[in-house]
């Protein structure tokens, strides 16, 4: 959690200086979800992530140096500078990418789970992360149906942070997420997404059940993003949440909660370790070269097509 938090704090600064172009969707406040879920994931498990994906990607084991280099647009980045914040991926680690389209990752995770079963890797699970806003995307509901119909090892993790940009969840969602998921035949539960141990416990049960062949699961994690939807919001001076509400959630900071459970010396040690990791990542990303603009269409196809220039 500390790694994600510090990584994001650094990104916020770099989004202001312009080192990171396009801004980011900060994950700060929601760290307990990615960390609690990932505690049970293995290297070959697959995740699909969202526009707010840094936490999921780091928690699944992506190298912070290369993750940051990606955001700097460097050729050493996870995606060689071709993906950026909203597409950060490490396919070798089962990270099938952050995704710029809300809900788009859910059916991709179902496909990965289908392939795993087809290939006899029946201990493998796929996790689809998405927000409360994605529950209004038809394709997500289609994905629920397919996963349940074919009893696939998919864990759908809904990070309900109360808003889809400015739209409060009670103005965007009819009914209750857990009951909706259960209606599709998913084994569904809700958990306090501000408590990493609570998330870990619930996710542990769900992941184990998926591995045991007991079909797809759904976990609604009640959480909150401490910052704006996107860094541009701050610059635009947009605000749609009242201060008391924000304060009531920041008072439940998952990092503070976890710190209180650790011996102070241990917590300090973790902090020092993370500070060193971040410093290393910053140095690595900062000294990494960009790519030659003549190579801007590299990797467009895995097989070849000679693309004609635009002029």
């Amino acid at each position, binding site marked *: 959690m500390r790694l994600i938090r510090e990584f994001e704090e650094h990104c916020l600064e770099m989004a202001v200086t312009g080192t990171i172009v396009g801004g980011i969707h900060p994950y700060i406040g929601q760290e307990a979800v990615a960390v609690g879920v990932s505690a049970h994931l293995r290297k070959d498990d697959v995740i699909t992530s969202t526009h707010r994906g840094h936490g999921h990607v780091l928690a699944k084991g992506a190298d912070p140096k290369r993750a940051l280099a990606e955001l700097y647009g460097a050729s050493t980045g996870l995606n060689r500078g071709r993906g950026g914040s909203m597409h950060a991926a490490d396919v070798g680690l089962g990270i099938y990418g952050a995704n710029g389209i809300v809900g788009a990752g859910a059916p991709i995770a179902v496909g990965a789970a289908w392939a795993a079963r087809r290939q006899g890797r029946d201990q493998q699970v796929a996790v689809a992360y998405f927000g409360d806003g994605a529950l209004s995307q038809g394709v997500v509901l*289609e994905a629920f149906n397919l996963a349940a119909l074919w009893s696939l090892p998919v864990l759908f993790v809904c990070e309900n942070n109360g808003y889809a940009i400015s739209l409060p969840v009670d103005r965007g969602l009819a009914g209750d997420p857990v009951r909706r998921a259960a209606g599709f035949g998913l084994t569904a539960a809700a958990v306090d997404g501000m408590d990493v141990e609570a998330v870990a416990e619930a996710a542990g049960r769900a992941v184990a059940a998926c591995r045991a062949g007991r079909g797809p699961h759904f976990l609604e994690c009640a959480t909150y993003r401490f910052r704006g939807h996107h860094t541009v919001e701050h610059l635009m001076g947009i605000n749609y949440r009242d201060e008391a509400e924000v304060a009531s959630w920041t008072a439940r900071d998952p990092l503070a909660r976890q710190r209180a459970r650790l011996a102070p010396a241990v917590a300090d040690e973790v902090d020092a370790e993370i500070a060193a990791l971040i410093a290393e990542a910053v140095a690595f990303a900062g000294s990494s070269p960009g790519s030659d603009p003549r190579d801007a269409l590299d*990797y467009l196809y895995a097989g070849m*097509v000679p693309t004609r220039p635009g002029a």
Partner: protein
Amino acid sequence: MPSLSYIAALNQALRDEMARDERVCIFGEDVCLGLTGITKGLAEAHGTGRVVDTPLSEQAFTSLATGAAIAGQRPVVEFQIPSLLYLVFEQIANQAHKFSLMTGGQASVPVTYLVPGSGSRSGMAGQHSDHPYSLLAHVGVKTAVPATPSDAYGLLLSAIREPDPVAVFAPTLLMGTSEEIDGDLDAVPLGSARTHREGTDVTVVAVGHLVPVALQVAADLADEASVEVIDPRTVYPVDWETLGKSISRTGRLVVIDDSNRMCGFGAEIAATAAEEFGLAVPPKRVSRPDGAVIPYALNLDHALLPDALELTEAIRAVLRR
């Protein structure tokens, strides 16, 4: 010589690839039954674990194929109606097609989109008569429109083997056709045009079911003009070399394709020929009108489709100049 039907050719390609490559699997609606004919018998041969009847969830099963492909499968996705491609444009154009570049080459998405019954279905009206291959070409998705059974076999084989997403359109008007086959069927590389008839006065580039139309017109005009007929076979990528050589030689070009005129495939061929191939006279296009919606009544349906008469007139027009 054995006779091979267009549908049997596609079926044979799936059969052969499924036998050759364990990773090939099929998703779609009514594919176990083989409603379109293309997947007939495959579920019996390979099981419903590999030939998968999906519910009516095109968006989910299109991206499911993407996920499965990244995870090592070679899915073929069959769509019952060409216009369903509009429903899954996000999943194809914005997801599958972009994964390779966006991941910096980490992921490839070897999925084949099979679109049988494309183009007018004579009486099926507005929502079942589109032929949207130009859209996919515009986006950069590799796209084949085979004109003969042997090309249908060969292009589908190549599509499945390609490490990228590939769409294969099977025009309605060809699905009942057959071809006498001598020799073995083989893969046809994507991006390789086929010169069906050699000629010296004018190059006709024809796509899909309009290839036999163009050949008939060329034969009918044989006393008037020597018409070369080329089928690009894939509308993306295009075999510019073969097209360029022919057009540079004849100096005259007519393109006939079943797209809407605005930004259609014919526009691209004409533009490139004008820019690069040294046309002696301005090219002509025969296409659907701008923004065409195919009406129900058969005479209205036919009125909007490119046909032999329009092609004949276009050829005569470029020859007169």
